[in-house]
C-alpha cells in the first residue's frame, strides 16, 4: 500500500507539472494573440505527425536518453555527476579520433568508435570520482569544470588538429561506419536502440540484482551502508565509471548515428538536460527514457509550432523549463515533513471516517 502510494505521487507530480507548464504556455500564447490549440496541435504534429516526424523525435531523444541515464545511474548511488555533457562530448571526440586517425572502416570501425567512446567517457567520469573518494571534493563542481574542459578540447580537435579544409569542423566519418536507419522511411538511426537497451539493462541491474540493491542502498543512506560493511567507496567509484561510460557510449553512437562530424555548438546543454530528465523520471531508468523522448518531442515540435503559428520557439523552451521547475519543486514538497504529516492526518481522518461509517 505504502509503495503504491509512493509511486502514485511519483507519477502524479510530473504529470501535474507538465499540465501546469502547458497551461502557462497557453496563457502566454493567448496574451500574444495566438491560438494555443492550434499551436499545440502544430507542436504535436511536428513531433509525432508522421513516421518521419516520429523518427526525428527518436533521433533527437537518443543523446538525451544517454545523458539522462548517465545522471540517473549516478544519482541512484548518491553521486551527483553533473558531468554528463563532458563525458558525452569526450566520448564523441575520442570515438571520432579513433576512426578518423586509424582509418578502420565498416563494422570493426563502428566497434572501435563505440569502444573508445565508452572508454573515454568513463575515464572522464573517473576523474571527479577519484577526487571525491581520495580528497573528499564535491563532485558537482569538479564535473561542471570538466564539462568545459571537454567542450574546449573538442574545439581544439575541430578547429586545429583534425579540421576539414573549408570550415571549423572535422571531416565527416567514413560512410561505412555511419549507422543506418532502423526502418528506412523513418529517420531514426540504430543509435536509438542501444539507448533503450542501456535503459532496460539499468532497470534490470538496479531492481533485480543484489548488487543493484546494494548500490541503491548506498545511494539512500551512505552512512548506514558504511556501518553495514558495504564497500561504499568502491560503489561510488563504480557508479562514476558506469555513468561516464554510458554518456561516452552515447557520444560515440550519436556521432555515428546522426552527427557524423564534430562541429561548433555540438552537444550544448545535453548534460544538464539529462539531469533534469532523470529527476523528472524519478530516477527510474525506464521512466527516464520516456521523459527524454517527451522532451525531444517538445524540441522537435517547437520549430513546427513556430513555423505554423509564429509562436516563438522560446515559448516551448519556457514550457520545458517550467516542467523542470514545477516537478522538482513538487517532488521536494512531497518530501517535506510538514507535507508528510499533513498527508498522514488526511489518511487517518478518512480511514477514521470509514470506521465510523462501519459502526453506524
Amino acid at each position, binding site marked *: 500500500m505504502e509503495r503504491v502510494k509512493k509511486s502514485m*505521487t511519483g507519477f*502524479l*507530480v510530473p504529470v*501535474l*507539472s507538465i499540465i*501546469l507548464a502547458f497551461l*502557462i504556455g497557453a496563457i502566454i500564447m493567448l496574451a*500574444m*494573440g*495566438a491560438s494555443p490549440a492550434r499551436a499545440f496541435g502544430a507542436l504535436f*504534429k*511536428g513531433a509525432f*505527425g*508522421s513516421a*518521419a*516526424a516520429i523518427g*526525428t523525435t527518436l533521433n*533527437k531523444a537518443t543523446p538525451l536518453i544517454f545523458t539522462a541515464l548517465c545522471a540517473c545511474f549516478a544519482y541512484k548511488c548518491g553521486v551527483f555527476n553533473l558531468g554528463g555533457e563532458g563525458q558525452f562530448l569526450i566520448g564523441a571526440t575520442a570515438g571520432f579520433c579513433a576512426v578518423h586517425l586509424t582509418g578502420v572502416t565498416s563494422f570493426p570501425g563502428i566497434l572501435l568508435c563505440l569502444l573508445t567512446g565508452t572508454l573515454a567517457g568513463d575515464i572522464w567520469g573517473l576523474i571527479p570520482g577519484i577526487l571525491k573518494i581520495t580528497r573528499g571534493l564535491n563532485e558537482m563542481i569538479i564535473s561542471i569544470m570538466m564539462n568545459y574542459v571537454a567542450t574546449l578540447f573538442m*574545439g581544439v580537435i575541430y*578547429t586545429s588538429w583534425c*579540421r576539414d*579544409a*573549408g*570550415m*571549423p569542423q572535422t571531416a*565527416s566519418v567514413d560512410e561505412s561506419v555511419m549507422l543506418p536507419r532502423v526502418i528506412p522511411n523513418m*529517420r531514426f538511426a540504430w543509435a536509438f536502440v542501444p539507448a533503450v537497451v542501456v535503459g532496460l539493462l539499468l532497470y534490470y541491474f538496479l531492481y533485480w540484482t543484489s548488487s543493484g540493491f546494494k548500490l541503491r542502498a548506498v545511494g539512500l543512506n551512505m552512512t548506514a551502508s558504511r556501518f553495514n560493511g558495504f564497500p561504499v567507496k568502491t560503489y561510488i567509484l563504480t557508479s562514476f565509471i558506469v555513468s561516464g561510460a554510458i554518456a561516452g557510449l552515447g557520444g560515440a553512437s550519436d556521432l555515428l548515428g546522426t552527427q*557524423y*562530424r564534430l*562541429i*561548433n*555548438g*555540438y552537444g*550544448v546543454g545535453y548534460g544538464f538536460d539529462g539531469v533534469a530528465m532523470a529527476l523528472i523520471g524519478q530516477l527510474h531508468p525506464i521512466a527516464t527514457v520516456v521523459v527524454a523522448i517527451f522532451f525531444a518531442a517538445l*524540441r*522537435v515540435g517547437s*520549430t*513546427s509550432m*513556430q*513555423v*505554423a503559428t*509564429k509562436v516563438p*520557439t522560446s515559448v516551448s523552451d519556457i514550457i520545458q523549463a*517550467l516542467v523542470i*521547475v*514545477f516537478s522538482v*519543486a*513538487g517532488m521536494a*514538497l512531497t518530501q517535506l515533513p510538514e*507535507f508528510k504529516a499533513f*498527508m498522514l492526518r*488526511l*489518511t487517518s481522518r*478518512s480511514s477514521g471516517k470509514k470506521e465510523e461509517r462501519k459502526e453506524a
Partner: protein
Amino acid sequence: MKKFLAMLLCGSMIFGLAACGGGAANTSDGGSDAAETAEAGEATHKVGFILNSSINDGGWGTACYTDLTAAVDADPDWELAYTDSLSQDGYYDAMVAYCNEGFDLIYAPGGEYTDAVMQVAEEYPDVKFALLNGGEDIPASAKNENVTCLLPDATQIGWIAGALAGLASETGTIAFIGGMELTTTLAKYEGYVEAAQYVAEKEGKTVSALDAVYANSFDDSSKGIEFANAMIEQNADVFFGDASAVDSGARQAIDEYNEKQGEIKVFDIAQPADFLGQNDCIIGSQVTDNSSLLSLVLKSVADGTFKAEVTYGDLENGVLSIGALSDSLSKDVQDKYLAYIEEMKNGTFMS
C-alpha cells in the same frame, strides 16, 4: 479527497511560482506593443528562411533577411517566414518543419548550413533549396536536383573592401575579423589583402595585413570588442569583417577608441549592406544585393523553371556594389576609389 487536496496544494504553490516568473516577464516587457504577427495576404508560394544569428544583429543576419524581404515584397506571389537564433542541431529540424508546412523554397544564407540542406533536400525532393555561399559542386551533387547555390564572388567582395582599405590606411596595417573559417571568408580575406596591397603600392605606400582572426561565433559581440581592441594595439587602422554581431562589437570598440583619440583615426568597412551612418567609424560599405539573385530564384520556382545550378554574383551583373562613402574621405580618395571599382568591373584591376 486527499488526492484533491494534494493537487490543490501543488497547484497553489505552482501558481505562486508562476507569479514570480510571470512578474519577471512583465517587468521586462515594459510598454511593449502586442506581438507583431506579420499577416501576409493571399500568397500562393511560401519561402522559409533560417538563420543561426538574429535577424537584427546589425550585420550578416540583418542583410540577408532584408534582401529576402525585398525580393518577397516585390513579388506578390510569395510570402515569407523565418526562424532565427538556431543552434547547430536545430538547422535540420527547422527546415523539416518548413517542408512539412508545405513551403516551396527554403533559403539558407551560408556555407555552414550545407550538411543540413543536403540532408533535407534528399528527403524532400519537391521542395527547392537556395544556399548562399555553398560550394560550386553542391547543386550537381544533390540527388534530387533541388538545390541551387548563390555565389557572390567572394574575391571581388574582398577587393572592394581592400581597395578602400589600401587608400584609407595611414598606419599601413589593416585587419580582418571573421566569424568562422569558411571557404568564402578565406577568399574574402585574401581578396581584401591583395587589393589593399596593390592599391597601396600604386599610391606609393606599403600596407600589410594582420592575420585574420576568427571568433567562432556570429553572435558574441564581446568577442568583436576584444578582437578590435587587440588589433588596434597592433596598429591596425582599417577593419573589415565577416562575422554578423561580432562585427557590431568591433565597430563599437573602434568608435570608443576614436572617441578617446578625439578624431576618427580607425575606420571600418561594413558588409554586406550599406551601413554608413550606423557607426561613426564606417567609411564605406561593400554591398551584396542578394535580393536580385533571390528574385530570380523566386520566379524560377514559381514558374517551374528552377534549375540546380550555381548563380554567380559580381560587380558586373550588379549583385556586388559599393555603398555610400563617408564625407570624411577626401574627394580625391573617393575619385580614386571609384576608378578602381571601374577597373574591377572591366576586369583590368590587378592585371
